[in-house]
């Protein structure tokens, strides 16, 4: 036990004496949590719209004002010629072109049916899909409105309609930060945990001090434990700062569910992640290698974890990969506990899986550590 304490003292001293690591622990998470949600704002709200109005009728004016009044679109071009309007897509001045043909109103009243033409720049599929569906919704509402007037004019008895009440649970304001911030915090803790553990251990290999430890009667388990415990504590600390100070004070996110449950999960998760760092260190000879390998894995974890794009939309092979990444479970649990207030009953599966990860990673790492020393 005393050996462990002595080793822990050594690790903490070395960590806090390293000028490069302190900014990594304190400044980087803060900056990233402040900048990333600002930048990673996927909420589609500024779709650039070009309108070609060849009709100039009361109906076309009504439709245009309805669209621009919706708040989703930003009118960047207004003209008469379609080729000119199309140019705005080529030059990225507009994402969407709405063409109102000549005689739109006249034909609509005469034939009771008429078409509008919408061209969407679909290179960014997400934006195109959402923009199209917003516009379709507005046109539908427009239909209902003009019919309301129209039916009144022709006195056409009853008409049927279904009213829908739309609501978004757990985030009624549809605040995008609520979605991103917990996810980014989870990714940050993962990145730091793996990176710091792997580089720290490989450094002792590279410098040669690990030899000196190996000829002493110190128990290897104690040596590894002394390496992992400080980063476990730092991980807990960074997470608490991120959740308690930045998420809460800056973004106004407070956990709906039990904090105890969240920390319990984090505790196990960190053991798994530090085990991964240990594993990487046993496969690397130099710090540069450790960094590249960590970079590679963390990148895949981040892209596949559902942080940016929904896992449900992935093909099955990709979903399989994403469920092999511990980060996927952590982000899921973060969002479930913090935003929805899910309880232990809802999270049993995730707890089981992360426990399995923790045991597997560390067993593999320790077996491999023994072999290489």
């Amino acid at each position, binding site marked *: 036990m005393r050996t462990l304490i002595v080793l822990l003292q050594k690790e903490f001293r070395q960590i806090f004496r390293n000028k490069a690591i302190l900014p990594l622990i304190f400044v980087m998470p803060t900056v990233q949590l402040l900048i990333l949600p600002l930048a990673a704002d996927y909420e589609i709200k500024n779709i650039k719209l070009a309108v070609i109005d060849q009709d100039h009728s009361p109906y076309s004016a009504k439709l245009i004002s309805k669209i621009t009044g919706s708040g989703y679109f930003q009118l960047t071009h207004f003209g008469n010629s379609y080729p000119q309007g199309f140019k705005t897509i080529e030059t990225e001045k507009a994402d969407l072109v709405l063409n109102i043909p000549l005689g739109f109103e006249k034909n609509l009243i005469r034939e009771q049916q008429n078409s509008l033409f919408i061209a969407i720049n679909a290179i960014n599929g997400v934006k195109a899909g*959402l923009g199209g*569906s917003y*516009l379709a919704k507005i046109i539908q509402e427009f239909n209902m409105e003009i019919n309301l007037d129209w039916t009144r004019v022709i006195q056409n008895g009853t008409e049927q*309609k279904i009213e829908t009440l739309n609501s*978004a649970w757990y985030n009624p304001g549809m605040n995008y930060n609520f979605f991103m911030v917990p996810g980014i915090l989870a990714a940050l803790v993962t990145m730091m945990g793996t990176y710091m553990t792997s580089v720290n251990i490989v450094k002792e290999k590279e410098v040669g001090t690990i030899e000196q430890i190996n000829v002493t009667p110190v128990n290897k388990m104690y040596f590894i434990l002394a390496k992992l415990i400080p980063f476990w504590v730092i991980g807990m600390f960074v997470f608490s700062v991120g959740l308690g100070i930045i998420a809460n004070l800056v973004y106004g996110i407070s956990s709906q569910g039990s904090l105890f449950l969240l920390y319990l999960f984090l505790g196990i998760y960190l053991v798994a992640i530090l085990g991964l760092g240990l594993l990487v260190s046993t496969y690397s000879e130099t710090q540069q290698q450790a960094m590249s390998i960590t970079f590679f894995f963390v990148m895949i974890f981040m892209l596949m974890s559902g942080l940016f794009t929904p896992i449900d939309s992935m093909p099955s092979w990709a979903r399989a990969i994403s469920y092999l990444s511990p980060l996927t479970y952590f982000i899921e649990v973060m969002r479930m506990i913090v935003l929805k207030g899910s309880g232990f009953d809802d999270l049993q599966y995730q707890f089981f899986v992360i426990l399995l990860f923790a045991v597997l990673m560390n067993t593999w790492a320790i077996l491999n550590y023994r072999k290489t020393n």
Partner: protein
Amino acid sequence: MYFLNWPEKQREVPTEMKQFLIFVRKEFKHVFRDKKTLLMLFGLPVVQIVLFGFALTNEIKNSKVLIVDYSKDQATCSIIAKIEASTYFEIYSVTQDPLEMEKAFKKGKIKSGIIFPLNFSYDLHHSGKAQLSIIADGSDPNTATSLTNYLNSIVQDYIHQVSGSRTGLLFVKAETRMIYNPELKGAYNYVPGVMALVLLLVSVMMTSISIVREKEMGTMEVLLVSPFKPLLVILSKAIPYLLVSMVNLAIILLLSVFALGLPFAGSIGLFVLVSVLYIITGLSLGLLISSAAASQQAAMLMSVMGMLLPTMLFAGFMFPIENMPMPLQLFSNVVPAKWYYIIVKSIMIKGLGLSAIFKEVLILTGMTVFLLAVSLKKFKTRLE
């Protein structure tokens, strides 16, 4: 030591070109001997293209929806059948217990739900007006918006069908055409971005690290005391990475055209030229970093902070620039990847020519000249 007294034939003065080739050969050996790093250099773009091309998409498919149906009549059944038929949705369950919906949301089993009140059909036919609730999981706001919109349009579709036979109603139909990317594939957006990212990764990070390594190990001094122009030393370092970048570019292009089915609409020649320009931008940035960094770790950190993060954030392929606050939008203009990304999209997907991307190419050229000038000046002052 007889080799010192060996009667040499007349010594040729090696031309600069010859010296240069000797150094280039040395650099190639360095690059191709480190198999682990090489694997990463070529593996990373492949993995990224595959992930971005196939796995990462925001389109909604088979999203699970739970339905609480208190009516169980002809109208609700028709609407449920319509939902089931859509590719967007998959019915998770139909129940009469509202508590089940909350449970399913909390377990993360469903993303949306519908509640049909009692007497739905009756209300619709007799008072002409019925109500229903659509609930989406707002913890993912964009998906929630799409799901709500899709469910709404299915419901409106139904009512239009039912009442469509009746005359006297006006109906405006929207004909929508998705230009450039009719299937709304994510790859069209991501592939040009991955190109911008990978080319920069190789040219900036690898160049700076390889120069700093020579500094760290002291071999740089040896090179600089040799009768060889320092500028050529640097140039010979850049050439293998230029080649590796070109190979990467080819791999990405082949993968995206043949595996992902992306078009290549524009001129290949123009594309290669602009890419070389962009790679040179990266190499100058790498040189600049190498003159500022004292150790490999520092070079790595500076590359990640100064290049990788800004590129991911501000190139425009991962995060929409127009949604960012003004200062960040202004900052995005100094990120070379942003301009290269616009150029690649224009040439590859839209098939535009030089006249359409003239401004972007000019900006990129300006950046390259500036970076190159600053980094060479720094390199020279370090020598003196």
